[in-house]
């Protein structure tokens, strides 16, 4: 599967827009990315380990309403992480 980062998140993955990852779930994919880009975990997850609400998960073009680590993925899937934050 492919993990796609856009906007403000790109700097936390070294500006690699797309990571190709061998993963069967969203949790595995994010964990893989967090291992390679340690800053990413704090940005993506809150204190409880849940994905922050400001990050939207789009799976193959469809917004996932309540994404969690158990979200099943298949080979060839494209997951976009969209982060809409403003102000500061």
């Amino acid at each position, binding site marked *: 599967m492919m993990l796609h980062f856009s906007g403000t998140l790109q700097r936390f993955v070294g500006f690699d827009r797309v990571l190709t990852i061998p993963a069967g779930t969203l949790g595995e994919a994010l964990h893989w990315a967090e291992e390679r880009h340690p800053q990413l975990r704090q940005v993506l997850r809150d204190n409880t380990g849940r994905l922050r609400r*400001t990050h939207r998960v789009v799976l193959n073009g469809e917004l996932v309403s309540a994404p969690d680590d158990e979200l099943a993925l298949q080979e060839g899937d494209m997951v976009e992480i969209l982060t809409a934050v403003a102000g500061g």
Partner: protein
Amino acid sequence: MRWVPTPLWTGHDDLAALVHDRWGALLARVNADASERYEAGEPLPRWFAKAAADAGLTSFALPRGAGGEGAGPRAWGRVLEEIGYLCEDDAVPYTVSMQAGVVTALLEADRSTADRSEPARQYVCPIVAGTSLAALAYSEDADPFALVTQLRSTRDGYRLTGHKTHVSGAALADVFLTYARDDNGDMVALIVERDDPGVEFGPTASLGHRTNGPRTMTFHHTPVPAARIVTATDGLGHAQRFLNARRLVAACGPLGRARALLERCIHRLATTTRYGRPLCEMPNVQGALGRMYIALQAAQAMLHRAFDRAESGRSDPLFDPVITAAKHFVVEQVRYVADQAVRVLGGHSCYGDPRYGRALRDFTDLVVAAGAQDTLEVLLGTTSVSACHTVTGREAPS
């Protein structure tokens, strides 16, 4: 006889009349010295908070369970717009909507619990009663992932250290909803009180909104009891939810004010003679006035649609593209109207009536309020690209 709005603006006469009848006297009292306070950079007078609360303005849109009248987003937006129309001080719609926003944020933070959280229990009633004023202390001149204010846990609570670069309303506010990073780097939402040890206020220059009482805020190891924590995790989500709602209400007052500005402009042009006839009879001036009217009608349509969406519960609470587009569009239209007013009025707008200069400054300030226009454009573009599934190759419509 019941007051009726100018025929130029139709469609919501009942709410316009309600604002005039119910709060007109209060707004006229504010107007009496609005120019002088603006020039002096003085905030709203302290009496305003209590008077607005006593008149039911602060609580108009709050839930009945919190002492409010339970008006929905659509009515609240219209009320704020009409306040902007009648009141020359932008700090009025800003301040009352900020009180409602903070109360809503405190109440929403404890939706997951059966009982009201400690911050809600402690602060909601005084804010609703107008005995305590609230402000948002968020800005650090940084992106949301680079805020540096820190909340460190101690044996008996927390210590807050950091700096907020621009806090609107800080000159008068008693309590502040603020955000900081905790020991783990997660963002926390918390309440700080004005008189807490180690809280220091400083002056800050402001392009516009000079009666909003902006200040810098610095926290020097300020002790914070655990009972002040509004949300202990994902404060970023809490802040974005707050700012998303803020985006919508922040555009209302200025839109009403721009409508009043157009009317004032027309009255002046009708009594200004050039080359033997009133300026308002010249086709180029009429064309400019027409474009200003179109801009404001379009802004109203966009804003009211966004409020309809919020009223129906269909808006995204953290980042709603329609709300965001509405804020962006309204700000650009009111800036256009103020600029056009200067062009058709000539020197009068620069040295004959300070309202036009104030509007130019205040409307320009809105470019950075509740999410800078350029940032919002990028976010809307990103959202649009994703929605069209470009990444996964969905075909364009024929």
